[in-house]
């Protein structure tokens, strides 16, 4: 039996992502190039959307050595006219992998900007070249950075930084990465094309490595309203999220260092003179109302410790054990841990427990979640079996699990607030479809907001037929949060709904020139895989898609039957023109006449009659 020594190393977030880059879509040169394009373009569009700027995004991919075979290093540059990033934030934004504790929800293409950092990390790993960032927030001064990431320390290394006078605002990011354009090219072109359909208010330009230029100008002059940030919905929450929210809601025990002591003295008006313990307490009582929360906590601690400022400087608070009403501290003088009892009757006790144990359940619910009022919060507490005034900090693990479960199960919460969603809108969608496909027929619909598992969503759809659409339809263009979903469509919920439809019922037959566009907006799209290419078949989403498609299909059917009538009339006219002369010829001989009957007026009459029918 040999003992195995295991070594536990803490790794930085950068290192974690480096080791798991497959998950983020950087598994091979083809996919990495495509993913990098997506991340930067989507960041640019998101930034512009948030500030209500019509995006003008310029994407360029250049081979470092055009003659080398793929895969090879490419320089990928994405330039936008967005708000830019303040100079002091640039290194952190691009030179660290951040993992945030964002609880606010709103619809955005990407989450937390992680993907862009991953792209930079991938570029640095494969080519060992820095990232170039140019940013101007005011359109006058531009900061130019050359950065590397220190992967182990998760810190940016600034190689160069200078400023320059410019005339345009915006951000430009340029990285060098190993890619395979020969394989990724068509995918990237599709991506740019389809993105411009769902962002008709944006101008997108793409210069590809072979010297081709793809330019899509904006075709609508209205920006869809920017989404607002909202608090999460109770149904969309888990234990871990509650834990993180509690950390945010709790007030930290202040670190009683020299600076803190100075602050307490100053606030009590005792900056110069030393008072004994009782004197300090008296003074505090008098000034209580003017004192800030951290100062109140220090005073409360002092009341139990019965110490003056000098003594306070010689200890460190270790733990506040509320259930056992004990206060533990380390005495530097005696070099040992000591404790005092806390009197629960003391007026300071409440101050301390309130700080340590955080908000009450009802306050936590009404303040931290959307659409929960005080009465609903009380009702919920009853439903979940908690006292409404129960402090969040006093919850055991089991109780947290119970709370989380109950939040999922309680049915009287209002449905999620869709104001955090930013659908494109029917008019821009219709304009986009008409401009892109030049169809004979087009119809769009935006379904009312709905929700799944506490996440609000809206489905928008468009349908187009005929015109310049190529046959072989329905061609399905899928979008989620204004991102085109290009691949892996077989397992997607949209395809499922489309394939379930019996198109012959809507008079669509054969090899139709037929396009369907779907856009699902949500604070969280339920992707089936990390590749963000297909949406899982949540029944609520499937239902909205189905209803939307049915509505549009009925409109299409009405159009098709009109179109069918017109075609039929034309066909009939042709039939008469073909057969009536033959009938005339045969009956002339049968009847033993020499001159054919005058059937021509019959032809003219027939066509007029049919015109009226349409």
């Amino acid at each position, binding site marked *: 039996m040999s003992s195995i020594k295991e070594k536990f190393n803490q790794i930085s977030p950068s290192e974690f992502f480096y080791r798991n880059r497959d998950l983020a879509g950087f598994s091979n040169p083809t996919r990495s190039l495509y993913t990098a394009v997506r991340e930067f373009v989507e960041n640019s569009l998101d930034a512009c959307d948030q500030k209500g700027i019509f995006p003008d995004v310029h994407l360029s991919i250049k081979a470092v050595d055009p003659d080398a075979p793929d895969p090879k290093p490419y320089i990928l540059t994405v330039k936008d006219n967005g708000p830019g990033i303040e100079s002091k934030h640039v290194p952190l934004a691009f030179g660290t992998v951040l993992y945030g504790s964002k609880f606010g929800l709103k619809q955005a293409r990407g989450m937390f900007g992680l993907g862009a950092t991953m792209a930079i990390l991938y570029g640095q790993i494969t080519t060992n070249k820095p990232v170039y960032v140019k940013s101007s927030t005011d359109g006058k001064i531009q900061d130019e950075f050359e950065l590397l990431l220190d992967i182990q320390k998760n810190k940016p290394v600034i190689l160069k930084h200078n400023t320059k006078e410019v005339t345009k605002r915006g951000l430009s990011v340029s990285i060098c990465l190993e890619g395979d354009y020969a394989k990724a090219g068509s995918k990237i072109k599709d991506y740019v094309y389809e993105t411009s359909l769902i962002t008709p208010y944006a101008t997108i330009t793409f210069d590809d490595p072979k010297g081709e230029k793809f330019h899509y100008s904006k075709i609508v002059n209205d920006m869809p309203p920017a989404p607002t940030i909202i608090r999460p919905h109770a149904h969309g929450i888990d234990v871990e999220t509650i834990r993180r929210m509690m950390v945010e809601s709790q007030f930290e025990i202040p670190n009683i260092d020299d600076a803190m002591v100075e602050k307490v003295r100053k606030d009590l008006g005792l900056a110069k003179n030393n008072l004994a313990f009782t004197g300090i307490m008296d003074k505090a009582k008098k000034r209580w109302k003017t004192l800030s929360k951290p100062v109140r906590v220090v005073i409360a601690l002092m009341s139990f410790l019965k110490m003056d400022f000098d003594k306070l400087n010689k200890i460190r608070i270790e733990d506040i054990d509320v259930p056992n009403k004990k206060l533990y501290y380390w005495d530097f003088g005696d070099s040992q841990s000591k404790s005092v009892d806390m009197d629960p009757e003391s007026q300071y006790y409440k101050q301390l427990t309130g700080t340590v144990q955080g908000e009450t359940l009802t306050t936590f619910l009404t303040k931290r979640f959307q659409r929960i009022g005080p009465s609903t919060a009380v009702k919920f507490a009853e439903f979940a079996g908690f006292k409404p005034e129960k402090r969040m900090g006093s919850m055991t693990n089991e109780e947290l699990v119970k709370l989380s479960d109950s939040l999922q199960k309680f049915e009287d919460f209002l449905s999620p607030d869709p104001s955090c969603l930013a659908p494109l809108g029917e008019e821009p969608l219709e304009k986009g479809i008409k401009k892109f496909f030049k169809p004979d027929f087009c119809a769009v619909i935006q379904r009312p907001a709905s929700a799944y598992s506490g996440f609000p969503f809206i489905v928008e759809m468009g349908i187009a037929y005929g015109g310049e659409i190529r046959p072989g339809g329905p061609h399905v263009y899928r979008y989620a949060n204004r991102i085109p979903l290009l691949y892996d469509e077989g397992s997607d919920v949209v395809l499922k709904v489309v394939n379930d439809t019996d198109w012959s019922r809507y008079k669509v037959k054969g090899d139709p020139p037929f396009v369907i566009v779907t856009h699902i907006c949500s604070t969280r799209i339920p992707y089936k895989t990390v590749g963000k290419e297909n949406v899982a078949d949540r029944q609520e989403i499937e239902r909205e898609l189905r209803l939307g498609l049915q509505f549009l299909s009925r409109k299409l059917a009405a159009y098709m039957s009109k179109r069918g009538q017109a075609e039929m009339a034309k066909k009939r006219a042709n039939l008469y023109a073909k057969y009536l002369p033959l009938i005339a010829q045969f*009956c002339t001989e049968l009847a033993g006449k020499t001159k054919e*009957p005058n059937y021509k007026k019959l032809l003219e009459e027939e066509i007029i009659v049919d015109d009226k029918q349409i």
Partner: protein
Amino acid sequence: MTTNKSKDRKQKAIEKQQNIIDALKDHGAKVYGDLDNGQFPKFSIPSRSVSNIVYDKKLRQYILGNSAALRSSRNSSQLRSFTQLMWLAFFANRLTQEKKSSTLRDVYYSSQAFAIEFEDQSESDNIIVDLEAVLSKPREDFHIFPEERSSIFGDLNIEYTIPGYEGKRMNLSNHPDGYAIGPSLTTAELVDTSAEIVIAIEKGGLFTRFVEEQVDKKFKSIIINTGGQAPRSTRTLLKRLHDEMGLPVIVLTDGDVYGEHIAMVIKSGSANAAHLRELTVPDAKWVGVWATDIEKFKLPTIPMTESDIKRCYDLQSDPRYQEGIWKKELDVFLKIKRKAELEAFSKYGLTNITDKYLPQKLELAKSL
């Protein structure tokens, strides 16, 4: 006497031709008039759907009921078949006027010269049946004939009426392979015969045997090979032999349900030709091979197939199979579920059928 009779017949034939030509002209004139008046011309065609086919006990055959379908050139889905029907009338008119004949297959190909597309021959065959229904005349009357596969042999003198052969006579016992029953034979004058009976037989093999064994002489008969289900021209000829020459007709078939029905069609027509009334020989008699003969003559048998049995049940619901030997034999077939071919008699020697079986049956026929 004979010349007078012949003249009568000739006159009759000419009248028949003229009737057809007149009927066609009437229809043509009506269509012409409609077109000239700015009206869409239309035809009324007796419906041949199953619901309109009824059995007439008096006539002892299937006939069409009263319902008729309107085929209008106004209706774009009927325009094509309307034009096809017009073309066929036009084509039949030319055939009849010029005394030329055409096969069903010919019709199909001739149509292509006039930009009338028939998708296949069955479509053109259908239009021919439509014209038959409109005129209430068999297609042979307007000179359209099926491919021939039946033949005749025996002492019968005929006189041709077809162009180029008018007045030429022929005795149908001069050629031992028999004579094909085609348009020239069906339209010929039947002059005279020494025969006293017509024997219709289902199979070519047996027909040859009967000629070899001189059944025509031994039994004073005319032998006709129907080649399976008798074609219309053969049924027309059988009817004429019966009606014009006063000869009784007996039918000899395989001992199975299909054989029984071949005899029934000669006697009382088929549902397919319910729109026509001149194709039946109501007095024709089926003399064998009966189901009861199979045991009586100890014939070698083969088991009935599924479809044989199904056919038996189908015929059980046919009004013509509700009495007499028709019902009796059908029931026995169903009971023994076995069948025997005419050739089965060869077990007892090649001439057994002509020496033993046929005389018995001819005797029996007199009492049927």
